[in-house]
């Protein structure tokens, strides 16, 4: 079959993109979702705090998702669930397989990559030790507890201070588990300050910075972990080892955009974001293939995922209706203290939103944009943390049609 737009993934990015495409007059949209229900990871994020930017109220993840799902249903946008996309070709042929739909082959004019991200696992850390039960990534523990009503353990150690790990520290405590501590290899937390406050400090859960788990022990079930202090190059310091008895280890050690399908489509990835190289239209280097949300770069707030997906859809609609988008021949360069930037290319002719993260925590700094050596924008910040994505609107009238843009935090 043929579709104007095929959206891969029915999470927050995919749903928001579908609705905006429809608003822009695109009739022929198909969303393919791997799970039985749309909504993506929001379904298991039952804590509140979602939607403050978007709706001006504090919603739980399922409520935030439902607002989009209801509108997708009301608009009669086609969505196939229980359907896994197997391949996307550079010619934008999408191959999928599902319980009800069987084998699908869809020729798309535009493909929207909104697959989200997945968690780094124990394998990626290469932590020594045995391989007992009781070691979970934070999101897996969250799915067990919030979707399946399965309690994961009683005596818990958390490795990594990512936001999901912090949220799970609180959730496990509320459900009667004893969270003995959160260990973070870096000298600063990787989650948001408000989550350190309301998930750890509120419950007296200690956060040990510059510490990691150096050994996992246990035969059938986890029986203990060994933790140690680390130096500035993350190497454990001999003599600082301490054994902590526990039956559960939760890993919250980073998220990786899930880009296997993007690679199959011939999309080139940025090693810094692990997502696609995109221009200001969220278009990858394969014309007609777009990416937004956590598959492009990991966000800390879903509100920004929705906004980015809507911006993608504005561009994808223009691509479908006009046949092409303006050329983006200029580069956005990550300068001093900047870990990565999105987009990586721009046209110089239009306004766009720049997203970036700093490499280390900084205080009393400015984000500075320069083109051809000229400063075109400066934003002061009291604090800039790697945990917080920084977004800046860049106005077209400030830009010139020639010269790369350098972004630095100084």
């Amino acid at each position, binding site marked *: 079959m043929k579709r104007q737009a095929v959206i891969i993934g029915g999470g927050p990015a995919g749903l928001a993109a579908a609705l905006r495409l429809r608003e822009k007059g695109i009739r022929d949209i198909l969303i393919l979702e791997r799970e039985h229900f749309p909504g993506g990871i929001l379904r298991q994020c*039952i804590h509140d705090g979602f939607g403050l930017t978007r709706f001006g109220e*504090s919603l739980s993840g399922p409520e935030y998702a439902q607002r989009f799902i209801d509108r997708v249903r009301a608009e009669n946008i086609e969505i196939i669930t229980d359907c896994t996309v197997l391949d996307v070709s550079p010619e934008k042929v999408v191959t999928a397989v599902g319980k009800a739909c069987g084998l699908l082959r869809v020729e798309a004019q535009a493909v929207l990559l909104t697959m989200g991200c997945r968690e780094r696992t124990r394998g990626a850390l290469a932590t020594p030790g045995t391989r007992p039960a009781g070691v979970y990534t934070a999101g897996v523990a969250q799915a067990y*507890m919030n979707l*399946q*009503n399965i309690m994961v353990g009683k005596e818990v150690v958390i490795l990594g201070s990512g936001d999901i790990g912090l949220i799970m520290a609180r959730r496990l405590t509320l459900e009667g588990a004893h969270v003995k501590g959160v260990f973070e290899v870096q000298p600063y937390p990787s989650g948001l*300050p*408000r989550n350190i406050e309301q998930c750890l400090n509120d419950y007296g859960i200690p956060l040990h910075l510059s510490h990691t788990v150096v050994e996992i022990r246990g035969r059938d079930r986890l029986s203990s972990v060994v933790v140690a202090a680390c130096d500035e190059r993350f190497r454990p310091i001999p003599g600082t080892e301490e054994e902590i008895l526990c039956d559960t280890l939760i890993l919250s050690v980073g998220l990786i955009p899930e880009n296997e399908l993007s690679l199959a489509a011939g999309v080139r990835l940025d090693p810094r974001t692990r997502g696609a190289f995109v221009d200001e239209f969220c278009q990858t280097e394969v014309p007609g293939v777009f990416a937004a949300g956590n598959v492009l770069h990991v966000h800390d707030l879903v509100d920004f995922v929705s906004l980015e997906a809507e911006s993608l859809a504005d561009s994808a609609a223009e691509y479908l209706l006009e046949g092409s988008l303006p050329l983006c021949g200029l580069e956005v360069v990550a300068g001093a203290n900047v870990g990565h930037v999105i987009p990586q290319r721009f046209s110089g002719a239009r306004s766009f939103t720049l997203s970036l993260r700093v490499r280390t925590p900084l205080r009393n700094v400015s984000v500075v944009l320069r083109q051809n050596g000229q400063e075109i924008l400066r934003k002061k910040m009291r604090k800039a943390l790697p945990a*917080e994505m920084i977004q800046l609107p860049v106005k077209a009238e400030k830009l010139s049609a020639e010269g790369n843009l350098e972004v630095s935090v100084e």
Partner: protein
Amino acid sequence: MKRTFTCIICPNGCEVEAEYEGTTVLSVSGNLCPKGKAYVTQELTDPRRTIASSVRIKGGELPLTSVRLTKAIPKARIFDAMEEIRKVTLQAPVQIGDVVISGLLGQDCDVIVTKNVGRKGDQ
């Protein structure tokens, strides 16, 4: 007295430096909006939090639905609130906004459903 608070009202997570005498806030700095001062005042007089949890569903397409509080309750009552929520079992179907417990612990606060769960077998 001086203390730094991390405001939890929004994702900005402002570090609010507050000078206070007992429960009276003398000055605040570092907050991007007036909510920062209100938060510090609340923290000094009567710290409150919302919580989210889940409740069992009978005959549902899922074993659980999620719930949250409509308003913050005193921080010291969080585990009492969890006890009350744990007692509840609902019958499918449930809808977002359904009130599970009204006036939780005598507070001006309800526990509401935050996920639609249909009956098992229904489409």
